[in-house]
């Protein structure tokens, strides 16, 4: 496999072979985190900037640790410390950062296409750490990695994605990645959170949670953004929890070896009950662990060799 990309902007751009290559590379990196000395000199002398315009602990920390375990230097810039509050444009901020010659910039931004804009003007490798409702490619890769680890294969599965599909970059990226491998994808949520034309992506839409989870091999719960509740999409988070919160009786309708995933952070008691989140089918903490390996692989592939 000849890896040629400068940037990782979205799963939709990647071929099946590229996705598998990243997963295979991640396998090699996963072991490092299990060792006493959790560090290799691979990216010594490289600089990785995380530029986060939206609050995030999980993704930013994961990228930072991934870079550090590869011996890269990391600098974190979050919206409260960046110049955005001073009215500096994204483009100017990026150009200023570029002058400091980082090798990679991980950007999270509330607006779709912001990473693409940076990729177009900067020489550094750009990694999309989540752009608005568009994509979150490393999340989909770590989800796929986790599915492969648990199921030993990533095809022929019934995968149910539950929640606010319309505004979820996690859902989009996962749909794009899973569709490469002949899986049955069912999207479930209130119709106000299902975007029109979703079926054109090759997924089935189901409004009834009980039907959706029937025989599922994988159930992915999406985080419900509380600020959307009680406004226009759903009457209240309480009602949402009743209709679309994942409970034990749902899990019982799924396949015997179902795995329950959640990109975090969870709203316990809303989209998922404690019992399920901490139950035997939950792989939520594996996802976090695998996120590290996948992000190490991505950093390595993008900035490890000569461009």
């Amino acid at each position, binding site marked *: 496999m000849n890896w040629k990309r400068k940037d990782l902007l979205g799963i939709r751009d990647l071929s099946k072979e590229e996705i598998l290559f990243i997963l295979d590379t991640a396998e090699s990196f996963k072991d490092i985190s299990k060792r006493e000395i959790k560090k*290799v000199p691979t990216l010594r002398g490289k600089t990785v900037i995380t530029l986060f315009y939206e609050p995030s602990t999980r993704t930013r920390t994961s990228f930072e640790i991934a870079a550090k375990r590869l011996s890269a230097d990391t600098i974190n810039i979050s919206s409260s410390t960046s110049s955005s509050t001073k009215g500096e444009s994204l483009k100017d901020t990026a150009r200023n950062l570029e002058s400091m010659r980082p090798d990679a910039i991980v950007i999270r931004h509330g607006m779709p296409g912001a990473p693409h804009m940076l990729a177009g003007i900067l020489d550094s490798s750009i990694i999309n750490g989540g752009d608005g409702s568009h994509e979150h490619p490393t999340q989909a890769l770590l989800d796929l990695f986790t599915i492969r680890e648990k199921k030993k294969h990533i095809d022929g599965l019934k995968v149910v994605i539950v929640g606010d599909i319309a505004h979820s970059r996690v859902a989009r990226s996962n749909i794009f990645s899973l569709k490469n491998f002949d899986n049955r994808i069912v999207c479930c949520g209130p119709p106000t959170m299902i975007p029109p034309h979703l079926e054109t992506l090759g997924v089935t839409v189901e409004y009834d949670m009980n039907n959706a989870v029937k025989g599922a091999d994988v159930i992915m719960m999406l985080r419900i953004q509380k600020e959307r509740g009680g406004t226009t999409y759903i009457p209240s988070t309480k009602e949402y929890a009743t209709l679309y919160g994942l409970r034990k009786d749902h899990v019982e309708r799924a396949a015997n070896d179902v795995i329950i995933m959640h990109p975090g952070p969870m709203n316990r008691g809303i989209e998922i009950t404690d019992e399920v989140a901490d139950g035997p089918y939950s792989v939520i903490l594996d996802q976090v662990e695998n996120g590290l390996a996948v992000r190490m*692989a991505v950093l390595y592939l993008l900035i490890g*060799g000569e461009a």
Partner: protein
Amino acid sequence: MKNKVILDKKAIQRTINRITHEILEKNEGCTQLCLIGIRTRGIHLANRIQNAIKSVEGITLPFGVLDITMYRDDISKLKWPEVKKTEISFDVNNMTVILVDDVLHTGRTTRAAIDAIMDLGRPKKIQLAVLVDRGERELPIHPDYAGIVCPVSIKEEVLARFSEIDGKDEVVIVKTP
């Protein structure tokens, strides 16, 4: 120009037997001994040494595979080197590690391998076994066990071939284009 064969199948077998005996002699048996082969062809050489030791001593030594890509000092000059898995399932602490590679040249691979092993723990000793020492070292590294010492010019390449992956056993010198 025709490739020049410097070791054929029989010669390789003899060389491996000799190295095996040297290892056993130097370490006074095989207690606390383990073998780690460097990807790719070091694995096959190490594997054969493991078999040879077994036939002499009746003991199967712990055996590991090391991928040194993450430790290379020239990584940023390579065109996307593929990272493969390191598979060392035993504890290297207080072990005598026999690091095995097919051809020793600049010593940079050995340096990377030593660093990689040190990150896994603190072995008692690391010894280096190679099939061919072709000279032209760039680092102060010396093999403990060398099958054949064979200085070749910089314009030539020494290739060790193993039947497991190359179809036959031989060591050849080829001109690099």
